[in-house]
């Protein structure tokens, strides 16, 4: 499997296609396979040199015990861009991967041409969202409760607390929990739980509201039609100078999984139209 050294760590990297550089960043607890499953890897590789990688702590990349803020990950993105010889790139991120993408643009604006932000929620913009509306979370919470793990609504986004609870389950309970919530690769999740990733993903790490608002690149905000974070989507469209939004029909927080065809079509259409970029009108719901 292709591995690259960057920032003193070894990363699992997948690359395809030729053309302008495009980087794909998955979310916390995910891995680069999301880009294969939603077909973005093969579709975008028709027009770009696409590079997807497993974040530190995830998939087949190294798992340091600390260093999981969006700033740490953004440092990895820039180091990987150096390694692959990409002075500039278009960056697509999902969930916390989108926070990392934007953070990369904030610290190295000259290296980021455009951003696709898929359903992010930003720690600095937490006040915008009422997270109790997240149906996916409520379902997960109920399934977890049935398997003997009580996850508090108040700490819904607190991966540290989640990991604490899951890691203390005995073998039988753990199996029951895994079967209930359908998490494959639970060992990797537990491995991540031993790091500071849970707590680190909640902090601003310098990505303040001012820094977010200073983004001047073209931005596509892709959100699920029923995303829990639509207030963030609206905020980005209203406040960033070149931000379009698109809602993916039927999707909640995981559009690449919930409606992969529409998600990848929206991505492809916008990215391939970047050269013609001129407007920042919302483009409506994609079925």
């Amino acid at each position, binding site marked *: *499997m292709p591995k690259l050294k960057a920032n003193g760590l070894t990363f699992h990297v997948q690359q395809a296609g030729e053309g302008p550089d495009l980087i794909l960043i998955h979310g916390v607890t995910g*891995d680069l*396979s999301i880009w294969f*499953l939603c*077909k973005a890897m093969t579709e975008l590789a028709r027009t770009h040199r696409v590079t997807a990688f*497993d974040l530190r702590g995830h998939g087949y990349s190294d798992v340091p015990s600390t260093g999981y803020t969006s700033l740490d990950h953004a440092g990895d993105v820039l180091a990987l861009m150096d390694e692959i010889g990409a002075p500039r790139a278009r960056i697509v991120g999902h969930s916390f991967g989108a926070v990392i993408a934007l953070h990369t643009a904030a610290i190295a604006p000259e290296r980021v041409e455009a951003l696709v932000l898929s359903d992010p929620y930003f720690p600095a913009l937490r006040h915008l969202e009422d997270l109790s509306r997240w149906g996916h979370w409520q379902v997960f919470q109920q399934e977890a409760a049935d398997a003997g793990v009580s996850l508090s609504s108040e700490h819904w986004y607190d991966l540290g607390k989640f990991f604490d609870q899951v890691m203390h389950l005995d073998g039988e309970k753990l199996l029951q929990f895994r079967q209930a919530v359908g998490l*494959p*690769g639970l060992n990797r999740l537990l491995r991540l739980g031993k790091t500071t990733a849970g707590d680190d993903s909640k902090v601003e790490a310098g990505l303040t509201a001012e820094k977010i608002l200073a983004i001047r690149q073209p931005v596509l905000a892709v959100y699920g039609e029923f995303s829990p974070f639509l207030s963030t989507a609206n905020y980005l469209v209203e406040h960033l100078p070149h931000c379009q939004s698109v809602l993916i029909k039927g999707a909640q927080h995981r559009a690449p999984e919930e409606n992969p*065809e529409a998600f990848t079509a929206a991505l492809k259409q916008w990215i391939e139209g970047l050269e013609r970029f001129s407007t920042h009108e919302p483009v409506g719901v994609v079925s």
Partner: protein
Amino acid sequence: MTGSYSREEILAEVAGILADFQGREYSGPIDRETRFFADLGLASIDAVVLGETLQDHYRRPLPFGELMAELGQRVDRDLTIGELADFLARNLGTDRE
């Protein structure tokens, strides 16, 4: 590696590769009905890496991107080892002289 493969041979080779595949959370026997995710406890990232391992093993590119995308469309997002063996048989057979 050249020539043709029977489905049984392919299944045996896939089972052999999976027998000591990292990321696996299961140690029982592997047959056609064994499910990649639900039974073996593997994740989709393991499918990406297994795809590469199999391409190295058979020394030719195989359309794993298409297989992964099809998997992404499935409601249960799972794949039996038999289906994987059939995919390999289909694509290895295509290149056969």
